[in-house]
């Protein structure tokens, strides 16, 4: 299964190689042109049969993770986050270091030896380290070096009513939806762009958009979903199972009203459930794409993901299917002269 392969591949921001190769292998027979640009973005062009506006559909390949900063004389490994990670999710986990996927564990001080009150404070990055079983710095250096990327260790797992648990659903789910579109029949010509380093500051999207010069940009994402029990309903940014989430605004973009309305109309006409992303927190590649060169109209369609930026992010398979369906119909709508 594609989403399983995509989420189990490692691609911490700046180290997207494994994911990039997987995507290229997956789409190369379905596109008319494909290239990797100077900073690692995959830019593919699928030629349709009609005159088309310049449409760029983007999903980012990278995921949050960690990076090796120091190897202690004891052989233990210190690290720093790559992208936004709540430090509290790291304790008592297994990780995979470097291109040889060296297994390691992030342990914690035994509960028996803790001082009173210690347990109420979160363990910080400075207190945590990775143990690969090495006895000394020299021995650890045989397997690990400073700057190695570290990925969460988490297998794609289906559970509950139609749910999936995996790491990196943000944004392999977007990559997967985009690959679905590439493999389907479309009359519209479009650029499919898989970007690098979104999680560390929307790095890849700007140069990619500079190259593509889109008039319309559609960004596919895995987005925050906080519909869990202890969160007040009005703080639910999205709800799992309520369909694709359409962005209104976030920290990086006021999304194009007409394009958004086109997407909403398309959903309504086709009885596809949809929801608005009801938070302005966060941002995505649109932030760079909509202001590249002369600018572009952009929209974001996302699959809601609970526990995002953790090894155990969770999505609903129906949301995925509906996002994929909606994107295809939106493309058809643009084919018939929708938005420009």
């Amino acid at each position, binding site marked *: 299964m594609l989403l399983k392969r995509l989420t189990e591949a490692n691609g911490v921001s700046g180290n997207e190689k494994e994911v990039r190769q997987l995507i290229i292998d997956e789409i190369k027979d379905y596109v008319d042109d494909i290239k990797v640009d100077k900073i690692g973005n995959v830019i593919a062009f699928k030629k349709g049969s009609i005159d088309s506006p310049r449409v760029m559909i983007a999903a980012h390949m990278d995921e949050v993770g960690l990076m090796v900063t120091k190897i202690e004389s004891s052989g233990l490994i210190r690290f720093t986050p790559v992208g936004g990670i709540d430090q*509290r999710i790291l304790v008592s986990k297994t990780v995979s270091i470097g291109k040889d996927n060296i297994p390691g564990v992030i342990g914690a*001080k035994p*509960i028996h030896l803790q001082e009173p009150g210690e347990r109420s404070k979160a*363990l910080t990055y400075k207190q945590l380290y990775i143990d690969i079983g090495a006895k000394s710095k020299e021995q650890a250096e045989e397997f690990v070096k400073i700057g190695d990327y570290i990925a969460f260790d988490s297998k794609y797992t289906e559970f509950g009513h139609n749910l999936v648990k995996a790491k990196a659903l943000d944004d392999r789910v977007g990559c997967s939806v985009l690959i679905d579109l590439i493999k389907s029949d479309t009359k519209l010509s479009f650029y499919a762009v898989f970007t690098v380093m979104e999680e560390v500051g929307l790095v890849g999207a700007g140069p990619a958009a500079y190259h593509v010069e889109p008039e319309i940009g559609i960004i596919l994402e895995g987005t925050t979903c906080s519909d869990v*029990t202890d969160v007040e309903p009005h703080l639910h940014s999205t709800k799992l199972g309520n369909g694709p989430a359409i962005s209104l605004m976030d920290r990086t973009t006021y999304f194009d009203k007409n394009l958004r309305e086109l997407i909403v109309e398309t959903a309504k006409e086709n009885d596809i459930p949809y929801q608005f992303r009801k938070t302005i927190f966060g941002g995505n590649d649109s932030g760079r794409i909509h202001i590249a060169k002369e600018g572009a109209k952009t929209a974001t369609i996302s699959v809601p993901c609970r526990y995002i930026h*953790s090894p155990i992010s969770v999505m609903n398979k129906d949301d995925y299917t509906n996002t994929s369906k909606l994107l295809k119909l939106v493309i058809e709508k643009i084919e018939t002269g929708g938005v420009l």
Partner: protein
Amino acid sequence: MESKELLKKLCEGIGVSAYEDSIFNHITEAFQNLTDEIQIDNLGNIVAKRNGQENTNKIKIMLAAHMDEIGLMVKDIDENGFVKVTSIGGIDPRTLLAQEIIIHGKQDVFGVIGAKPPHLSDQSERSKAFKMEDLTIDIGLTKEDAEKIIEIGDIITIKRDFIELKNNVVAGKALDDRAGIVTMYECAKELLKLKHEADVYFVSTVQEEVGVRGATTSTFKIDPDIGIAIDVGFGATPELPEEDVISMGKGAGITLGGNIHPTLRKHLIEIANEYNISFQHEITPGLTGTDGRAMIITKCGIPTLVISLPLRYMHTSVETIDMNDVKTCAQLLARFIASISSDNLEGLLCY
């Protein structure tokens, strides 16, 4: 069977305190061909007895390692189908966030322990740890469907594969104290090569983590001349004071303190030196947090020793242990057992 293979089976098995029965088979199978008789007592302790040779005075040595592990229990299923939990044994709630778990209900149910997304929590919130009551298990079911397969009181374990790190170091959950059981298994294998007079009882105990209960009843029944608890000790890591820990890979910690029979301990150290088996000192002046604390006060008192395998990150799901320590500890125990005879026992127990 290789000891690592047995340890993997045991650690990936489920045996939260008082719910140990699903790993019974792995243990009885392992000891089947190494011992003469296996019994399971009323509480669930597995007692595998290996007869001594020419043991006319019926001397008895009991080894104990506990098979139970810490875990969680379902406390409530809320209106949205999320599950609230309580702990069985000592668990730091900080080690639970973003874990994959299995609820052992009518069937095994997969779930994850949820975290509020970082986008929604501010920095000050992130410096505070979640408490047990803040944690919520997401099993992706409605309350109605959840209640068909799970109920309050079901036990929960962290889903964790046993993994091999470098240097023969392994990591997983429940190494405390399944590594102790594997040490007994290795010891039983060593004894095949040695002559020993004492009957040896390899006891895999239940409910250590919740109050050394299995050791209490099994020691009572066996009434050994010598009791030895094999458990895990705190492996050295940077945040722990050196005087509180033992080092990984440097042999078992031989516990020193009031719980420990002084002359027997001296003998154990002499054996280690005689056979050039590495060991370390571990200091616990009062009662140890091991099966040894039950042994010493059984009946009229049992001469007791405690041996600790160095283990890092105790009571997390990524406990690590060096398999070399298991091996050397087993050798030490076997040599010690072989050295005990009806001729020297009384002298060794004399204060």
